[in-house]
């Protein structure tokens, strides 16, 4: 439990941290599109190299990023099995009674897993290296043009930033409540079904109660300070693109173009 790192912001001062959040979000979107272009193995090698380069520059240990995958291993295994058994194309490799495994099944599955891996890696890098506040500021700016067609950009950004702000708090709270209940003899790992249910209830009820209380307090605090969601407001911090942001965007777009070229001409 102490090792939940899934996208938690890591306060460092690296070139990646200093980039404009809008540039990071846009670059990530471009890269996500690039991942979905079927550019074969060469394409994946290019993408993996590019992403590894970013990780290297960010100074975050590779181990830490890999750990973010642990909760997803189960899902990946499930996907693997379903996929391997359902695709029926290409050369027949294994044939034991009703289990038939084809060559294409293996390749397809590998593709999917690599894609998932790269996608999660990208989003994890984004959230690990961007302050939650910057992230929401970026989202608000990017949604700005859609205000005219009725998208509540500010409210969405505020909601996201509150949610992001409270994730670590809730994790901390969860650990604390689990520890208190362990001291009272609850075993969260083993036990019969009935004991398991009690264990979960003993965690979830206080967690909800604390979270609701927190939400209430936060709402009061915001109102007490005169917060009105749709008020006209100016900003203390304004975002400006500088050269490194353009470099990032151009880099991402070049990679996307390279993927398209690979997909078309190979």
């Amino acid at each position, binding site marked *: 439990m102490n090792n939940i*790192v899934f996208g938690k912001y890591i306060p460092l001062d690296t070139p990646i941290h200093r980039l404009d959040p809008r540039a990071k979000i846009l670059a990530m979107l471009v890269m996500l599109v690039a991942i979905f272009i079927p550019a074969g193995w060469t394409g994946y090698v290019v993408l993996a190299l590019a992403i590894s380069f970013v990780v290297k520059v960010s100074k975050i240990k590779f181990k830490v990023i890999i750990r973010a995958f642990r909760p997803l291993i189960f899902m990946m295994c499930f996907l693997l099995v379903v996929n391997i058994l359902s695709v029926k194309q290409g050369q027949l490799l294994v044939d034991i009674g009703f289990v038939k495994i084809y060559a294409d099944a293996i390749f397809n599955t590998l593709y999917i897993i690599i894609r998932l891996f790269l996608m999660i890696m990208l989003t994890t890098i984004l959230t690990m290296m961007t302050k939650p506040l910057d992230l929401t500021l970026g989202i608000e700016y990017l949604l700005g043009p859609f205000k005219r067609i009725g998208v509540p950009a500010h409210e969405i950004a505020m909601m996201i930033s509150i949610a992001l702000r409270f994730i670590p708090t809730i994790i901390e*709270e969860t650990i604390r409540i689990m520890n*208190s209940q*362990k*001291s*009272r003899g609850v075993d969260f790992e083993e036990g019969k079904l009935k004991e398991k249910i009690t264990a979960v209830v003993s965690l979830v009820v*206080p967690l909800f*109660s604390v979270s609701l209380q927190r939400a209430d307090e936060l709402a009061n605090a915001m109102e007490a300070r005169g917060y009105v969601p749709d008020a006209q407001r100016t900003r203390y911090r304004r975002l400006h693109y500088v050269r490194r942001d353009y470099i990032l965007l151009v880099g991402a777009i070049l990679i996307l173009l390279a993927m398209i070229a690979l997909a078309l001409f190979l």
Partner: protein
Amino acid sequence: MAIKFEKLSYIYSPDMPYATKAISDIDLEISEGKITAIIGKTGSGKSTLIQHLNALLLPSSGTLTIADFTITSDKKPKGLKALRRKVGLVFQFSEYQLFEETILKDVAFGPKNFGFSEEEAIARAKEALGLVGLDESYYERSPLDISGGQKRRAAIAGILAIDPDIIVLDEPTAGLDPRGTKEMIALFSALNKKLHKTIILVTHDNEIVYESADEVVLLEDGKVVCKQDAHSFFEDRALLKSHAIIEPKIVKLKDLLMDKGLKLDNIYSIQDLAVALGGNHE
């Protein structure tokens, strides 16, 4: 049930760039049957230290021995339940652990988990609630709609109902009114004197330490500065000064009186002081 820390260190998020060494190289023995106060500034590692007593944190290095339980870094300790039955831990924010529909059920939750029958658990819960000063009118109330101080009492009762040999309390009096604080301290002293429980008390209140503790452990930046008898600790002016510890009022008063030439050795309570000054208290 001797408690012994040997070269124990704990690091939070060891693989991260922001890894923090919360406590380091703790060598400490806590005496059986006494009240030991752990004091130190905010962030000095008190809560981190005591969570090891229930193996909720496992040391990054070093060992902790509690009677025949040994807790080290490298393995999943066995017999955790037995350990937690022996060492009861009341958390710093213990009011957030309540969850049952009624206070009585909530307090009975611990004993039930440790294998007591329903009736026995309820009987223990009633006894524990009596000890912390929550009378029958509270039994059927929801633990979620009582005041903060009452929640804290209920949480303390939840541990007392398990009847552990060692009771560890992290800031048990924070958020209680002065009277409630007094009652709680009297309760801990009684548990110690009458039932011979070993009590470990984390607190920022030096008045409480002076009044109730036998021994004091001072932590600073995750290290043990000293461990000594509570009374002699507060007599050591140089030590107090160098660690910016505010002396209890009675010590201050004694200082003032002794400056005026009075002889006041071996006087540790208001009552004794009153007698020494010529009053006839009881």
